[in-house]
């Protein structure tokens, strides 16, 4: 009997992003179209390594079975995925999770703040906003990384920088080399002032290391943004994705089912987060 939960995907394309990070384009082996929303994730794995929860970094397109994961090669699963050649297969289950609250963006300003690899789960949301650009008001992306070499989606970043559809602010901790991107030096929280955004309605979506999300959220609150319109994407150890294995619990929340996207006040009230 074939397990309906496990599906097989074939690696179509690898796009190197940084030294240890690449974007992997997969397509479902059965060729069926695959629907998922920005912010959701898949459980990816190969026999012998169990599974890891990885967010989509692409926007689902109609009648397509293609999807992209941007993966840093750090652990057992991700290192093995990094060794896959184009054409080879991978096991996956998904999509899981709730996704970004895209319906809350309609008619409002949207502020996206990301750090490092946190840009990957935000990218589908940004692409969605660009697709429905006339439905939202101002769109701002603030992205920070350690060095210019740690910037993923360089092509996208360049493209977005040159568009007047959105405002972009890119910053690095250390400017180790010249870059075609307009880079400022400092932390994302240093560049969050003076944005032409409506404090009452702005939808702020934040993704990055937990400590960075903490300070971004607190900076936003100090500036007067509405707490319940700040959303963060949480990362936790996961084994199942279906709310059974218990590893991802934060208070009463299962990050895999109730999240990974939470409104800031909804998740920061629990201990065991750095938010």
């Amino acid at each position, binding site marked *: *009997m*074939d*397990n309906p*939960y*496990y599906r*097989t995907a074939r690696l179509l394309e690898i796009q190197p992003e940084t030294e240890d990070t690449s974007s992997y384009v997969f397509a479902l*082996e059965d060729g069926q179209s695959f629907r998922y929303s920005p912010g959701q994730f898949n459980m990816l794995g190969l*026999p*012998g*390594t*169990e*599974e890891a929860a990885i967010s989509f970094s692409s926007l689902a397109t109609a009648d397509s079975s293609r999807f992209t994961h941007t993966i840093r090669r*750090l*652990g057992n699963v991700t290192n093995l995925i990094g060794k896959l050649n184009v054409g*080879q*297969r991978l*096991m996956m289950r998904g999509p899981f999770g709730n996704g970004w609250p895209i319906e809350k963006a309609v008619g409002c300003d949207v502020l996206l703040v990301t750090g490092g690899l946190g840009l990957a789960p935000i990218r589908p949301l940004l692409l969605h906003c660009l697709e429905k650009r006339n439905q939202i008001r101002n769109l701002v992306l603030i992205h920070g990384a350690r060095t210019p070499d740690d910037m993923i989606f360089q092509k996208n970043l360049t493209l977005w920088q040159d568009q007047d559809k959105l405002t972009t602010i890119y910053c690095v901790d250390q400017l180790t080399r010249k870059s075609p991107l307009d880079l400022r030096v400092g932390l994302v929280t240093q560049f969050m002032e003076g944005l032409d955004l409506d404090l009452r309605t702005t939808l702020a979506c934040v993704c990055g*290391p*937990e400590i960075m999300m903490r300070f971004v959220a607190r900076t936003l609150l100090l500036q007067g943004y509405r707490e319940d319109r700040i959303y963060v994407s949480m*990362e*936790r*150890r996961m*084994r*199942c994705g*279906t*709310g*059974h*294995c*218990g*590893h991802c*619990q*934060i*208070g*009463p929340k*299962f990050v895999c*089912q109730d999240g990974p996207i939470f409104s800031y006040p909804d998740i920061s009230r629990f*201990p*065991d*987060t*750095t938010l």
Partner: protein
Amino acid sequence: MQGQAFIIEKDQLFSWLEELQQGFQLIGPVEGEGGPAFVRVQSVKDLNIQYGLTMMGPQTYLFPPKERMCTIQERDGKYEVQTMETAPRQVLFGVHSCDLHAILVLDKAFLKPGMEDHNYRLWRENTVVIGLHCPRVYPQCFCASMGTGPFFEPKEGYDFLLTDLGDSYLAETLGDRALRLISSLNPRLATQEHFDKKSRIDRELRSQFQKEIDTTHLVEVISRNQDHPVWSRTADRRCLGCTNCTAVCPTCFCYNVKDLISFDLTQCERTRYKDSCQELHFAQMHELNARSTRTARLRQFVTHKLATWVEQFGCFGCIGCGRCMTWCPTKIDLTDMAKEIMASEGRQAVRRAQTKTG
């Protein structure tokens, strides 16, 4: 599900169980070297109906501490996944009220609509559950406080519910399967008199509890006292981090997954085994451990059982069996921690009232 109640004569019980053994594996309480334990019983004569508290609850036969999730076979670059197809037909005999509640709790965790756990559903479907009310109250029991005993009240989760009335057993049934299984006994129907007797025994047992906890405001009290000194004091001075509490807790559902792959890398066995939030690795991510201190881990266990579980599943995660404190090497008692927090809140309230009036 509709239920009916019958009377099983005392000398009929074991022969009936023997009869059930024809179609089912019988699992029940047996007195072993380390105390009573639920085991697969060969002869019904081995059963100990008067058993006390088992270390591992009967739910281990619905959610085994270690079980295969699937095997993955690689053939020509493709993956064939073989999952569990069926579970053995089994009778779980002699389940006390607290452990019946534990099974209900696991049902809520594993049989969420649209997100069912494949293996658990198979085990559950093929298991006949025969509950048995406790003959007495043990020192560690606080099921009366948690609303899970001494007698089992929900009309769900079991096939049979037996009460020892002294000269016979009252057998309450649920569903058609139970009626089918009991039909061979041709039992007489129970009357109001039998239920009255059951209520009398229930009342008598309730007066025997030595351990109590007031659950009225428990969720709120625990939730707003996450920085209370009791967590760090108990964790630092007493908790050994041995994970016994979670290993014996019948409602703990957390599991980890391990793959074992053959030497030629073509066949993989994916196994899950019960994991513990008391382990350092439990919430470890690559850059961050969400619960890196023993205090955080102990607080997670107690808070989950007594507070956050209610928001998750609409019931407490603690069923008042007392296993965690019984098998804790330093006898850490979660009700003591909760009571200490409640007492300090009470003292604060008194102080507040005094400052107001003063």
